[in-house]
């Protein structure tokens, strides 16, 4: 009997998205955002602007003289719970104070890279446990890298760090404090940054552009073409010269508005991070980046093995190398000395041996002389 295509309302498969919607709404989302960049680029202000509340505290300057300058990069974690229309998001913001702030910033980025890998590692371990309930997942879903608005190009430090970040996390480059660049300077700068990103093979986040609806495609295109995003951060409400009340920065010569597309790309970035692509960011992290990490680790490690920890702090590594070199050099020079000494001894021995031989030869000849003399004598006596 052939199955008949009924024109009834179907068996209800089409209701699955609604069920999903209910589940997601109840469960809420978990979003982890990392902000990375030199101090003073407006990272804290930006985070507060993005979520329109004071999530992060500004750096306390009063205590700066008494704090010790220990020249390392710290990882600062701030957690918050956001709620909008009964939908909750567990937000985690990771900051990296100290990055790029010192005279020598070599290997400054190690704590950051280690942190990213550790989150993947921790999730992997938790998955391998017998009970997998209640996993703590702090895998970073998006990393905003704040670029100094020099107007020239990316610095060597930027390139080094972005290369390493791009292969581990969704990297979104951001031009900080964009209100210091005129529109022309900004356009030139963006192009230069893009050129460097391409030339240096830095992998940045690109959201899927194609979509069923035209408007969505156009909007995605718009967002992606604005990368790197120029941002201005502020949580202050000010009045513009033409009477509007906006969120922005008030200068003596005008008001730079945060939510004005002609002033900066804040709205586009917000849309990317929250409104339209948050789930994409989360799923690419879980699927692509985590899988890459897991695959890399599983190829070299057995199930249940602890992670290979390299306890190398680069400064110590340098010292270690130096010491090792010195040690090998010393050993080499000692060996040389010994070898020379050995040579000398051998030469002595040879010489002495030769002397001995000559002596020996002399004795032999003397002996033979003596022999012949004896013989002569004997013959002589016999003759007589």
């Amino acid at each position, binding site marked *: 009997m052939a199955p008949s295509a009924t024109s009834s309302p179907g068996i209800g498969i089409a209701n699955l998205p609604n069920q999903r919607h209910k589940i997601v709404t109840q469960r809420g989302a978990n979003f982890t955002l990392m902000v990375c960049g030199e101090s003073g680029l407006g990272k804290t202000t930006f985070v507060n602007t993005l979520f329109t509340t004071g999530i992060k505290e500004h750096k306390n300057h009063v205590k700066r003289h008494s704090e010790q300058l220990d020249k390392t990069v710290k990882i600062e974690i701030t957690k918050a719970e956001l709620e909008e229309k009964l939908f909750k998001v567990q937000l985690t913001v990771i900051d990296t104070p100290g990055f790029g702030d010192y005279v020598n910033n070599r290997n400054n980025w190690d704590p950051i890279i280690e942190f990213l890998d550790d989150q993947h590692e921790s999730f992997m371990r938790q998955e391998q446990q017998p009970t997998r309930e209640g996993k703590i997942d702090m895998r970073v879903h998006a990393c905003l890298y704040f670029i100094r608005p020099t107007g020239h190009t990316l610095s060597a430090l930027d390139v080094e760090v972005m290369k390493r970040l791009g292969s581990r996390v969704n990297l979104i480059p951001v031009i900080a404090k964009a209100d210091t660049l005129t529109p022309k300077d900004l356009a030139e700068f963006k192009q230069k940054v893009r050129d460097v990103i391409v*030339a240096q093979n830095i992998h940045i986040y690109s959201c899927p552009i194609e979509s069923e609806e035209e408007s969505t495609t156009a909007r995605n295109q718009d967002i992606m073409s604005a990368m790197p995003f120029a941002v201005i951060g502020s949580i202050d409400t000010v009045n513009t010269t033409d009477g509007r009340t906006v969120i922005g920065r008030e200068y003596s010569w005008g008001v730079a508005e945060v939510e004005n597309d002609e002033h900066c790309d804040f709205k586009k970035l917000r849309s990317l991070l929250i409104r339209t692509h948050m789930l994409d960011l989360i799923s690419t992290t879980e699927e692509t980046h985590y899988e890459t990490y897991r695959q890399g680790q599983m190829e070299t490690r057995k199930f249940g093995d602890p992670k290979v920890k390299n306890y190398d702090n680069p400064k110590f590594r340098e010292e270690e190398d130096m010491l090792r070199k010195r040690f090998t050099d010393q050993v080499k020079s000692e060996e040389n000395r010994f070898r020379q000494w050995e040579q000398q001894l051998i030469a002595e021995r040879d010489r002495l041996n030769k002397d001995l031989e000559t002596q020996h030869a002399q004795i032999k000849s003397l002996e033979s002389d003596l022999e012949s003399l004896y013989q002569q004598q004997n013959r002589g006596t016999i003759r007589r």
Partner: protein
Amino acid sequence: MAHRLGGRRKNVKKGFQFTFMVVGASGTGRTTFVNTLCDSGVLPKKISDNPEEAHNEAGIKIKPVSVELDEDGVRISLTIVDTPGFGDNIDNEKCFQEIVGYLESQYDDILAEENRIKRNPRFRDNRVHALLYFIAPTGHALREIDIELMRRLSPRVNVIPVIGRADSLTPQELRDFKRRIMEDIEHYNIPIYNFPYDPEEDDEDTVEENSELRTLLPFAIIGSDEEIVVNGRTVRGRQYPWGAVEVDNPKHSDFARLRSALLSSHLQDLKEITHDFLYENYRTEKLSRTINGGDQDGAALDADEMASQSVRLKEEQLRREEEKLRDIELKVQKEIQEKRQELLAKEEALRSLEARLAAAQLQDAA
């Protein structure tokens, strides 16, 4: 400005020579500032390097450029030393040494010239009279690199801190930033050039002016070599979608005040301090080093010129010593000769006496 110098009319006609150095990470507005100051494209804008080379760290380059300015009818022969590449590397330790080396080698030239027997009348004084350090407008406080640089260079040159690209700070932020910077400078004991005055010795105007300039430190600089139209006027400035910043407007930036302080009112003071104080200190340090410990430090500062100059100095000294010794030798020899002559003469006299005596005795005997 002529009247300030009180009668140094000859100098006014001849013009002044002034050298200053600009130091700061790229993107802090150094080049634009210099071009704005001289009202012409003196320094070339940074040609962005090949994007494929962006991961390479270029070292620091030190480039002096000369330009002639006319300031209120006074000719100024200005030398500007730019330092592109400072602070742009991942590891910036070596940048300090290069700048200090450059400053000290200018002092060494003067030292060598002073000690020459025949001085060169056309000798160019290349000492740096002021150093403008461009602080990045973070809005927080001084960073480690800022503190290190100012601290290491203050013993050799007048350091004037400025905030580059100050148009990224609102008025309130700027006030707080300036305050925190000055607090840091005091906390770390960094001796910057702070328009010194003596309330007892100087006249009221000088005291007032200097204390006012002191409160403006560090100068908030906005530079532009483009002209824009604001309210019908054509001015130098930067045009943003939300407004226009004017370079010469004292409410927007301290550029005008810095320019007048640097090129007219305090030019002489900066030069005097460089010569009477900084150079003398360096000279004392260096000469006591050569007397006490030989040239160990000379080897550390890597400048071939330095080594050859000290060698030249030593040679001069040696030559002088040798001459002296030779003179002494000649004198001594002459004395010896004289004495010998005397001795010979005496001997003759004695002999003749003896002969006479012998003759006399013989006569007696006979």
